[in-house]
């Protein structure tokens, strides 16, 4: 698998979340994703960006266009140096929220993506990677 394009965007304000969505939309179009898949990855990115901002205290998103054989994909990595998540299973559980949300963001992002990976170290930060393939 090779990375054919990579860029990093800050996630430090509400406006940055809007920019993340716009950029992810543009990259999804660039790799030829259809309207439904575009909407899925943009929505997943919106969830993860807002978590990075609200719970992670801000961080950034790395966006990569990846190629595996003939297939193209969009891989997004959200990273923060916030408090981390002590119990990942609990955080992934639908309707669990510590911040008055719906508690559907992480589970939703997983269901909206082809690949989902989360690592977190309490006191050090959180990294979530998703990918959507054409």
């Amino acid at each position: 698998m090779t990375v054919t394009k990579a860029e990093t965007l800050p996630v430090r304000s509400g406006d940055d979340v809007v920019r993340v969505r716009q950029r992810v939309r543009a990259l999804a179009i660039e790799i030829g994703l259809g309207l439904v898949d575009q909407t899925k990855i943009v929505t997943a990115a919106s969830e993860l960006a807002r978590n990075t901002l609200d719970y992670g205290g801000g961080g950034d998103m790395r966006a990569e266009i990846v190629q595996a054989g003939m297939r193209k994909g969009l891989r997004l990595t959200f990273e923060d140096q916030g408090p981390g998540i002590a119990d990942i299973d609990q955080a992934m559980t639908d309707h669990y929220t510590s911040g008055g949300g719906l508690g559907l963001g992480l589970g939703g992002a997983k269901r909206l993506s082809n690949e989902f990976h989360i690592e977190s170290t309490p006191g050090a930060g959180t990294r979530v990677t998703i990918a959507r393939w054409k």
Partner: protein
Amino acid sequence: MTMDGTEVLKRTVTEDEAAILVGWTAALRDSGSLQSGRIREAELQTQAKAVLGQFRDALAAGGLDADSEGYASLRETLADISRSRAIQGFTPTDTANFVFSLKEPVFEALRRTSAADASALAAGVWAGGKVLDRLGLHTMEVFLASREEVIGRQGQEIAELSTPVVRLWDGILALPLIGTLDSARTGVVMENLLQAIVDEEAEIAIIDITGVPTVDTLVAQHLLKTVAAARLMGADCIVSGIRPQIAQTMVHLGVELNVVSKATLADAFAVALKRTGRKVVRQQTSTEERR
């Protein structure tokens, strides 16, 4: 001869003020500030003349410390100019150049007055560079702060403008949402809708989300809250304009709105009319006439 740069600079600016002004206005003219048509030459000249005069006085009163009391009125004048530049839509470069382009004619004048004394010339140039850089930065700080203010105000205006509540019929309201629904805007939307429900004694409010590009959990939560609040005010909500890709995404997210939803605003309106005991019929005569 003295090597005190402040003295050299002060003397030069005082003695050579007229020539510096001529050089400065020429530089401003060449820098393109005028070409944009945002400011007239006469106005630019007046500003330059006022700033230079205050600069001369400030040097006498405050030396090189552009943050000192002696510079207060000059800083104020520059701030005014920056603010008006921000509002007039000048670029940051144009604005910064206003002060920075004073350097060249000042250095020019220093060369004339201190040609014979290299160390005085060097000291004067250093002093001039230091104080004008500081003033230039001050200009930029004010400019950027003003730009942010302008942008912030525009953002607020858009937030208010783009959330109209439309009265479709007696007791039937429509709220067409357009654009990003982030927290600040949603608050406004909700207030507008609830107020309109009270004012119009509305029974049904149609929330149309055709113009909302992404429905994520935050948007969904805002919608749920709005629907719940409307219900408390005695109005039922119908959500319309959920496009197929949004519907699919919402299913994956696991979000349920638990309200009646319709594909289009027109469908929702038909339901609302029906629920309030009305019916739209085609006039019999017009169909016959067409035959």
